[in-house]
């Protein structure tokens, strides 16, 4: 067991077709940079690592507090790189005591509840298809990246699950209005579809980040205490030597 648990995040990112390739080369890399900048240990199960066995290994070795999936999904499974299940109802117990974010179609239908029933703290998922919305240059439209990544970013900051969910709905609303005002009603309607099918199950009071920051804070306190004790010790030692020299020992 290498990690401290609360500092570890597992990502599952597949690239087995064009939508997942765009999602995981143009959108999710920003999230990895963000998590690392917040001192999270990111276990990135990308492409050839995005398999069930690797997920199990990561869950045993690191005990992550948060698991994030960016792939295709079905009602009962999140898919691996070869389109077999990486996480499904049969392996739902692996998510015990974790917060799970599944950016994949349909996972909110049955899988999300199965994860909760098997001990997951909270699950974010979609209970229908999720649209990847692109401009003519195959870049995600404005607001897509923001709505996709907001929840994991806020979780990493230590916000409560229910507050992350509400913030995500507000973010969707902001970008829906933005595109409506620009006359891009189809983009607005597809973002609205994603928002309307985004669900949260589990304990809204759960958080991820606290212990990570507590750990960093404790590290600072211990460092300062160490310097202080070392300083006092040195002063005492020098005083003792001076005393001995004065007494002619």
């Amino acid at each position, binding site marked *: 067991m290498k990690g401290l648990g609360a500092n570890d995040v597992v990502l599952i990112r597949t690239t087995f*077709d*064009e*939508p*997942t390739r*765009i*999602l995981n080369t143009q959108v999710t890399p920003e999230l990895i940079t963000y998590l690392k900048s917040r001192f999270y240990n990111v276990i990135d199960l990308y492409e050839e690592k995005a398999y069930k066995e690797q997920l199990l290994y990561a869950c045993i070795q690191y005990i992550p507090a948060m698991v994030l999936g960016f792939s*295709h999904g079905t009602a009962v499974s999140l898919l691996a790189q070869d389109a077999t299940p990486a996480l499904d109802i049969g392996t739902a117990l692996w998510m015990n005591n974790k917060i799970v974010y599944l950016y994949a*179609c349909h996972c909110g239908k049955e899988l999300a509840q199965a994860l909760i029933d098997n001990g997951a703290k909270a699950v974010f998922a979609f209970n229908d*298809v999720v*649209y*990847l*919305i*692109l*401009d*003519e240059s*195959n870049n995600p*439209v404005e607001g897509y990246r923001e709505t996709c990544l907001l929840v994991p970013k806020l979780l990493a900051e230590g916000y409560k699950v229910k507050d992350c969910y509400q913030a995500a709905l507000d973010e969707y609303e902001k970008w829906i209005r933005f595109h*409506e005002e620009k*006359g*891009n*009603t*189809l*983009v*607005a*309607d*597809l973002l*609205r*579809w994603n928002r*309307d099918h985004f669900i949260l199950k589990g304990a809204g009071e759960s958080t991820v980040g606290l212990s990570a920051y507590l750990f960093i804070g404790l590290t600072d306190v211990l460092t300062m205490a160490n310097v202080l004790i070392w300083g006092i010790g040195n002063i005492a030692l020098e005083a003792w030597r001076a005393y001995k020299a004065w007494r002619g020992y």
Partner: protein
Amino acid sequence: MPYPDELKEAIAQHALQKKVKIGLAGKIYSPEEIAFHVRNETEVGKKIIEAVVRGAVERLGR
């Protein structure tokens, strides 16, 4: 019940004009493909029409 042709044509024209692309079910759909699927009410087309109708209903409700 099929959707009205006027609605399908309006969505198809909007997708072509705004050059929107959609990633869905393992495929990227170009504006021309979106227009085709909407006009022919395929499974993908029906999903898109449903999203647009939901959006229109919400806008009308404001």
